[in-house]
């Protein structure tokens, strides 16, 4: 049972894919808590279970065992409709592959979660414009995703994730498909969101440079939490990057 003080509270989380001899244990009893306003990075090698953990927390998949609580509410007690509502109103997703709808313009993509939530079109458009402004994409609102660069598409995805003012932003390898310059822009943006807006962020990455921007880094290995590191607070992102780059 969650104590309700954490935005994310994961207890004994286990996920097994397949059955019988071919079964694969992606997560083996993971415990994790993320406090409100915290920026947590999850690292680990391929197959360590970091993305699986993210999707379970994001209510995109169901665990084999264990519990996930978001803001004190146990997801296992929610039916599919309530989970959809949770994703719609309280969670924002940023994917490695952007996952934008290519037939919709930037503004339409951003307003989509609000439209799904039944917000009137005009209000959704206004808030989408705000969100686009937040990520510096106001000038591209009528562009289709295909007309944008990779970095711009990811900023668009972040604007979409933020438009509902979510409690939790989940980012799965947000820089995985981007070049260095674009990755840098995205990380600056995420840091700014955490620092200036107090946005709770849980980010999966396999790149230590970007993980260093978080307040805390969780390392997964073979489906278990292998290591946890709390980083010094109040480090502005550019400074972090400079430090990291000097080490490389």
């Amino acid at each position, binding site marked *: 049972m969650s104590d309700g003080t954490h935005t994310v509270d994961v207890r004994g989380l286990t996920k097994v894919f397949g059955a019988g001899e071919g079964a694969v244990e992606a997560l083996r009893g993971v415990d994790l808590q993320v406090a409100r306003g915290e920026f947590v990075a999850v690292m680990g090698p391929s197959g360590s279970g970091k*993305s699986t953990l993210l999707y379970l927390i994001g209510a*995109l998949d169901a665990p084999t065992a264990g519990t996930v609580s978001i803001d004190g509410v146990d997801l296992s007690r929610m039916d*599919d409709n309530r989970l959809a*509502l949770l994703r719609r*109103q309280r969670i924002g997703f940023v994917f490695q592959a952007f996952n934008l*709808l290519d037939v919709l313009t930037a503004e*339409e993509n951003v307003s989509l979660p609000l*439209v799904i939530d039944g917000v009137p079109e005009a209000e959704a458009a206004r808030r989408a414009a705000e969100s686009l402004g937040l990520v510096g994409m106001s000038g591209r609102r009528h562009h289709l995703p295909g007309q944008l660069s990779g970095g711009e598409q990811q900023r668009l995805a972040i604007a979409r994730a933020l438009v509902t003012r979510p409690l939790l932003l989940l980012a799965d390898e947000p820089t995985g498909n981007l070049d260095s310059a674009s990755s840098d822009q995205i990380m600056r943006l995420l840091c700014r969101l955490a620092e200036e807006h107090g946005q709770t962020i849980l980010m999966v990455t396999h790149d230590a440079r970007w993980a260093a921007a978080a307040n805390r880094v969780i390392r997964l290995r073979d489906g278990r939490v292998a290591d946890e590191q709390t980083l010094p607070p109040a480090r502005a992102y550019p400074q972090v990057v400079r430090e990291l780059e000097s080490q490389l």
Partner: protein
Amino acid sequence: MSPSRLPTLWRYSLRQTQRRPARAVLTLLGIVIGVATIVAVSVTTQAARRAYREMFEALTGRASLEVVAEAMAGFEADQAEELAALPLVKAAVGLIQKPAALVGPSGPIPVTVLGIDPARDRAARDYELHQGRFIGEDPGVLLGQEFASTHGIALGGTVRLLTISGLVEAPVVGLLQPSGAARFHGGAVVFMALSQAQRHFDLEGKVNSVQLVLADGADIGQAEAAVRRRLSVGQTVGVPSERGQLAQDALLNIEQILAVLSVVSMVAGAFVILNAFQMNLGERRRQFAILRALGASRRQVTHLLLREAAVHGVAGTALGIAAGMAISLSLTRGMERLLGTAVPSPALTLEPLALAILLGPAMTLLATFGPARRAGRRAPIDDLLGKTPPAGTKMPRRWAVTGLALIAACGLIDLAFIRGWLTPALGRLLLPAAMVLVLAGSVLALGVVLGPLMRLVGAILGPLFGIEGRLAVRQLRRHASRTALTVGALMVAIVITIGPGNEIKSALNNLHAWFDNVAGANFHIQGADTDLGFSVSIVSLPESLGHELAQLDGAQRVDRINWFPVRAGGRPALLIAATYSPDRPEQLNPAQDNPPGVMERLALGEVVIGTALAQSLQLDVGDKLELATSKGSIRLRIAGKCNQYHAGGMTVHMQREAAGKWFDLEGAHLFSITADKDKAPTLESELKAFCGQRGLLLHSREQLRQDMDRRSAGTIGFLWVLMALVFVVASLGIANTLTMNVLEQTRELGLLRAIGMRRGQVRKLVLAQASAIALAGAIPGALLGIVLAYMMNLPAEWLTGHRPPFQIHLWLLATALAVTVCIAVVAALVPADRAARLRIVPALHYE
């Protein structure tokens, strides 16, 4: 509303549709075909049914009831006075209605002569003169202005009418506007004074119809009862439009075929929609996963898809209604030829409109509901990560179970058919349902047989395509769901060709066999072509013509035939009175189960009845048939049954001599002349001269057969065109599916290229896949097509009273299979070329 002002999700759907216009068109075509067929068939059937009703209503004007004698025999004219005295009757108008032939330069034209009392007829009918004057007691006639103009007849000119008294000439004294009775029979009506008609038709002092205009507010039932009490033996009173009932019965058979084809088209259309929709969903899985990740509920995704389907359904329905109306124009012309009478222009009435509005979107939603629901219920994570293969690797188990259940339900209905557990009405209702069940069930259950089927196909194609063939089949088996969908599309295309096609061909064969039996004589002479209902165009010819014909060189034998509508066992039927020779029993096209001695009993005054009439009245050999005659009701023993196509098999056959005792035969309606051996050419030239002089219509046996084919060509042609259309659309579905097949295999094909497969081999692989799919669809499709044809053969017994032997037309099977394989291979050419040209690295990274 402009697209930019549409709500976001509508815009998304609209742009998604615009992105794949070909697929949207394919979906629409599936709906259009189904709806258009339903509308065309329904509207045309209604128009055909309306033809006789409106015709007789136009003829009777304000009259609500009509008194006639059986077989339209004459009765005393002063009976009209007696009926006019009844309290509920406002006016009673006696007249003569007789078919005749208007002899023109292009041959005889069937017309109806109305002999009216010029002084009193306006009580029942209005006449609007276009030119000239109204008729008096003189020999002058009135014609419809349009009819006269079409046939080059001017005011003041003379018309030549072929009647029972021979050729009659009369001046045209007036031309009528095309309204009221002048619209009867497409305007082919000649008005003359009653006294003149009585003379020309040997009915001195008589009429053969009294039309009753009822008093204002009079109850028609009460009036009918009051009139009935005053009638003499052999007379009936009724609503005038009932006289077209025989034609409507004759239409039942063709209506049943059209209705079945409508249902088959709907199912085929629904499958095309399903096919296109499945492809659509397969391609958009990731998008739905994104929507789900953003918080869309399962229901929202399902609703989004169903809304898209509904929009297609509504658009397709609107187009289908328009297309159906366009098709009905040509189908109505075909029906007109078949009926031999004018059919009113098709009109979109509430019934077909409601049917289309209901069925169009319903078939779309029905075809898409399952896939849309499944799309909404998919776990988003796999599709987001691209973990799931683009199409399912196995058929959902529920599909197979549902499919087998549907087939079992169809089997039960068939069993009930065969065992005779169903009433004809229920059977007619259930038959199309059974066909839908077996078609849908077979497609759904395809997964059960797909494994063995693909092994069989692999064995056939292996030697032809070598390693590429084996790889192709293996690939198809791995993607069972996708393969089943494509194979299903092909299977449906084949089924709808073989099923109805086989039955149409069988029906034509049976019709020709019947014709060869009943039309044995070399030449046939009539006053004019008859209509299908034998209601308006049976011209009586003088008996004396028979004697003259017998004198011609080469005429071995002249038979006289009369046919006219009667009431047999209370039902409208066609009485055919002819000289039936004991040595030519085939003349009757007798039923297989007749007892011996039928022809002898016929000579003794018994009757032979059509199997449809026997079925309708539930009578058999040895029973008594009640026959209404102008001399009262008689009961005659049924000597045997025969398989007839005249009047849809609602026929009563009597020796002409015996019929003459009960009916006023009024000359003959047809002379059949058998030529002496080797003298047919001589006789033909003599007959041409003979008929030319007298304005008669001469047909050789071959011409009569051609005429029969010509009459049915419009309707049969429609059936073939419709099947071809459905086949083409289903083929487009195949092209669509094959293209998707290749698209979804991009990564696998890239891999094959990466490990050394040559471009030519990839092309061969894709073509082998297309051939394998074609064969896999063709084998069950052919079997199911035969099953469908058999099911279409089942209800024939109810409609015609006999079930023609079930035939399988192998050439049709072979053609359908060959065309299917060709279409599949042609459809695969472009995808094969695309596959061969794939760039390896991008293909390996294709999601």
